[in-house]
């Protein structure tokens, strides 16, 4: 608290130095990230080019093997002929499911005793499983009328080579697979780091030189640094984009050549082995994605569809521009932060308040690692179309932006009018559930706080006998695992055998079918949760009541204040610091109170007593839509953050007194 006293007198800061360091860090960051992105994009481009070449090749091979009948000597002859034509393939294997047989193989290991045809060995299970996966994929895609599972499987081996497999079909059924292992492609040349370095060094040098002229004029230095940074980002970006586009065109031309070439070779093999040449081969269809849907870039006559190439180049450019904007924005922020003195101010602050930060840090560290990390993951997932079908896909492939949020928040079909004019609520609508959740939270917390506080006040009466006994008995609802007490409560509301209806009947009422209407069903959950939550509030209030000095009351009594005046004038304000946080947190917990709804009402009737969290759970674990569920969770989170901020503003709970 008094660390200031010993500090050395501060030198006036040098703007030149700050902006120079800022520019250095920012441009190094921008170019560094840019370099990584470019490197990644080039490697990715090379990989996808290799994928497409491999795909054309294996589709050609599969076509030939299909026509050779999948099993028999014709297959081995066709594979041998094909292998001679294709030196870039390291090993070709053909497997027929029937009898687990290896029909043909050019693998050097499969000679002599191991030569095809033979039964698959136990170590070759993966090969067979791969075939079965492809068969299931083809059947699934057909049955669902969708393209969901890969019909051509690619796997990269440790040495960078590609192993690719395609299904073999006979009369429309998948009966085997052909797998090709290709030789590793030549390594991709990484982008020049010298160029990258010059994009950092030149602007910094220019700035330093200019700085000699400009002197310590902060505004001019700032503008200069920003301009230089913008130049760097734009320049390196443009250069990268051009490089990518050149690569793209080269790839398309290359693929077209390969399609023509493979078509010719396949026809030659068919002719030489006198295999059926009808229907005619359509090599252009071999340039296709993993679902065997043609890309359409290569036309049937073997020429390149320029419009398609231009379109994909445009997509590349958009991606580069987005990356530029992002990188530019971040590096600009860094430049300004350092240049305008934010960094040094930051260091100073940390140093001045190191005691406070040390006290807070350990608790915060655990929080960051174990809570906020999973959070970020959840939020990231919420922008994707992640489902059980694509759990292994990279997030970028399934990115859908705000689509999930839009679909949750833009559905306003809360209620419709029936034919006879009655209002029918759509219980699964977000806004209905939100309304139930809010009602659920408000009622629960109100009950918990009033009952808890009231009992605490009573228990705080001086000289009251048996207080310890009451106290212990009253916390039992909290102490007992709620998995069973919730079930007991549910049982108490049974229409015929529940004690609640027995009591109603003792007083002459008629039994209520509690789970039949939304309101009564809601009441059962409310009763259960109210019962479960008041002991916590009672304990918190008991603790908080001890902070009130008893002489305050005495003074009030001397002044003739009534009991109620004492309560509102002394008790409540003194309880506020401890009680407000407990209430805020209770609201948060109740809002997300999954167990009770799940155990007591199960959302009945018709999902009308679901709350947001149980809905999110259903989307994740019943409907397997993880992205949608994450978006749901994030919306819940957003609502609570807004509430928390608002409540904090009103009660000033983060402030001292």
């Amino acid at each position, binding site marked *: 608290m008094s660390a200031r006293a010993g500090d050395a007198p501060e030198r006036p800061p040098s703007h030149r130095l700050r902006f120079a360091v800022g520019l250095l860090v920012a441009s190094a960051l921008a170019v560094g990230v840019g370099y990584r992105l470019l490197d990644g994009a080039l490697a990715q481009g090379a990989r996808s080019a290799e994928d497409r070449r491999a795909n054309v090749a294996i589709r050609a091979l599969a076509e030939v093997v299909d026509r050779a009948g999948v099993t028999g000597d014709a297959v081995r002859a066709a594979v041998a002929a094909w292998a001679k034509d294709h030196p870039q393939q390291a090993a070709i294997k053909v497997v027929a499911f029937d009898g*687990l047989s290896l029909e043909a193989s050019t693998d050097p290991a499969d000679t002599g005793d191991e030569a095809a045809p033979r039964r*698959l060995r*136990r170590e070759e*299970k993966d090969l*067979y*499983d791969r075939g*079965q996966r492809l*068969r*299931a994929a083809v*059947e*699934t895609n057909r*049955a*669902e009328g*969708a*393209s*969901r599972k890969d019909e051509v499987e690619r796997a990269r081996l440790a040495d960078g080579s590609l192993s690719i497999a395609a299904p073999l079909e006979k009369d429309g059924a998948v009966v085997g697979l052909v797998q090709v292992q290709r030789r590793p492609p030549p390594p991709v040349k990484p982008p020049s780091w010298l160029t990258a370095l010059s994009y950092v060094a030149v602007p910094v040098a220019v700035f330093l030189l200019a700085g000699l002229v400009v002197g310590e004029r902060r505004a001019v230095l700032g503008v200069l640094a920003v301009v230089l940074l913008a130049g760097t980002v734009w320049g390196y970006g443009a250069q990268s984009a051009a490089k990518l586009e050149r690569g793209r065109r080269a790839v398309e031309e290359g693929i077209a050549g390969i399609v023509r070439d493979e078509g010719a070779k396949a026809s030659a093999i068919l002719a030489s082995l006198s295999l059926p040449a009808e229907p005619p081969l359509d090599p252009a269809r071999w340039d296709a994605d993993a679902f065997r849907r043609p890309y359409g870039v290569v036309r049937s006559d073997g020429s390149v569809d320029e419009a398609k190439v231009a379109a994909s180049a445009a997509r590349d450019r958009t991606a580069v521009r987005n990356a530029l904007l992002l990188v530019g924005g971040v590096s600009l922020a860094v430049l300004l932060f350092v240049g305008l003195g934010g960094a040094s101010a930051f260091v100073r602050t940390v140093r001045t308040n190191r005691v406070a930060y040390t006290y807070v840090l350990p608790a915060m560290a655990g929080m960051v690692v174990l809570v906020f990390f999973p959070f970020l993951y959840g939020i990231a997932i919420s922008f994707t*179309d992640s*489902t*059980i*079908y694509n*759990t*292994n896909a990279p997030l970028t492939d399934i990115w859908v932006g705000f689509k999930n949020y839009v679909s949750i928040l833009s559905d306003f079909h809360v209620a419709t009018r029936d034919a006879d004019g009655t209002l029918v609520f759509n219980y*699964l609508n977000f806004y209905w559930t939100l309304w139930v959740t809010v009602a659920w939270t408000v009622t629960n917390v109100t009950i918990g706080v009033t009952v808890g506080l009231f009992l605490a006040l009573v228990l705080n009466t001086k000289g009251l006998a048996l207080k310890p006994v009451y106290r212990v008995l009253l916390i039992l609802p909290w102490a007992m695992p709620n998995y069973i007490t919730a*079930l007991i409560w*549910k*049982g108490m509301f*049974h*229409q*015929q*055998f529940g004690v609640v209806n027995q009591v109603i009947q003792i007083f002459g009422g008629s039994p209520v*079918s509690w*789970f*039949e209407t939304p309101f009564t069903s809601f009441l059962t959950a409310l009763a259960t949760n109210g019962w479960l939550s008041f002991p916590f509030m009672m304990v918190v209030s008991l603790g908080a009541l001890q902070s009130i000095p008893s002489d305050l009351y005495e003074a009030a009594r001397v002044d003739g204040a009534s009991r109620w005046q004492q309560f509102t004038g002394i008790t409540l304000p003194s309880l506020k610091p401890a009680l407000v946080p407990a209430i805020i947190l209770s609201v948060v917990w109740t809002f997300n109170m999954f167990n009770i709804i799940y155990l007591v009402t*199960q*959302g*009945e*009737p*018709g*999902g009308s007593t679901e709350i947001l969290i149980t809905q999110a759970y*259903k989307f994740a*674990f*019943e*409907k*397997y*839509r993880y992205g*949608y569920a994450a978006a749901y969770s994030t919306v819940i989170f957003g609502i609570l953050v807004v509430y928390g901020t608002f409540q904090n503003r009103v009660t000033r709970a983060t402030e001292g007194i």
Partner: protein
Amino acid sequence: MKLTPRLSLAAVAALAASLAAPALAQKEIVVWHAYRAEEKAALEKVVAAYNQANAAKGIKVTTLAVPYDAFADKITAAVPRGKGPDVFIYAQDRLGGWIEAGNTVEPIDFFLDKATKDRFIPTTMEAMTYRGTVWGLPLDYKVITMIYNKKLVPVPPKTSKELVAVARKLTDKKAGRFGLAYSYSDYYYHAALQNGFGGRVFDPGPKPVLNAPENVKAMELLMRWLDTDGILPAEPSTALITSLFNDGRAAIVFSGPWFLGEIAKGIDYALAPLPTLDEAGGKPMRPWMTVEGVFVTAQSKNKDAAYDFAKVLTDTPAARVMALEGRQTPANKAVYDDPAVAKDPILSAFRKQVEVAIPMPNLPEMTMVWSPATTAMNTIVKKSATPKAALDAAEKAVLRDVAGLRKR
């Protein structure tokens, strides 16, 4: 220095260890299951015998019991990250989901020879099959059957007409006595009736068909039992059914093997097949069966050995232990020829019932069915909607969810 003796001691220990285990590279096969009490004891007995027999090969099987409520989550979290077991035992209902998510269950088609395949009750094998590939070996099945209080029902009814006649006689609603009690509003239990009429949840595709005309008919029969005949209690939670039966206030119950462990000591009960349905032309009620499979995980380092254990665990000698000591109903056919098993009234009753049982779908889409189906069941039994209307609504909900999952 002071460190030296300790260091050398450690070195000696390390040396000794390396000498002790030269030939035997210990292969540990970890098995997760959700059993407790006698089922667990029986499994552990089989494992101990297996370990003894395979000690020479250096294979050791260890087991871990995981509570059922955490089991699926634990598998989903651990296995794809390479932290899970080599083998796990679980019902088929989550199978499709795990297969679609990938990296969890290993297909065993390749290992599976005809002799092994043929030793199981065919329908249990069906439950282990997803999209034409076999993913596990069936260990046991669980199926609901008719459990009746012998004091109240001397001769079990064979047809639905007999059932209603017996039940009506024994029902005194106001006194809380019921001729028949089962969790009829639970879709799983209701399925026996629905399948008896030839109803189903999915057509090939899979395309949900919750509102198939047969399903509606089954629902109408249920409503007759509930309403016209008045032989069933209201709000029939499983907990309530157990209580009623234990108090001697439910004469006949439809439930599965798990129920037997909850029956109070004083109750004299027996098992009989579910009745045939006169309303469906004398066809039998066909309950869903859940089949617990032994699955090899995709991340196991010893898949061969793991499969070998699975094979032994589902073989007849092990099945005998699991049946007689674990009180399981094995999927293995041959074990029912064993005299001790054959004369066990409970095991043979379930064996008889399983003949007409249908494996519960193992498709991931099935999880989307429960919630809408439950809602439909509840609205129907509370008479808030007609069977047709409620099932139409459920069908719509399931179709929407399936479409939501499949869209790309």
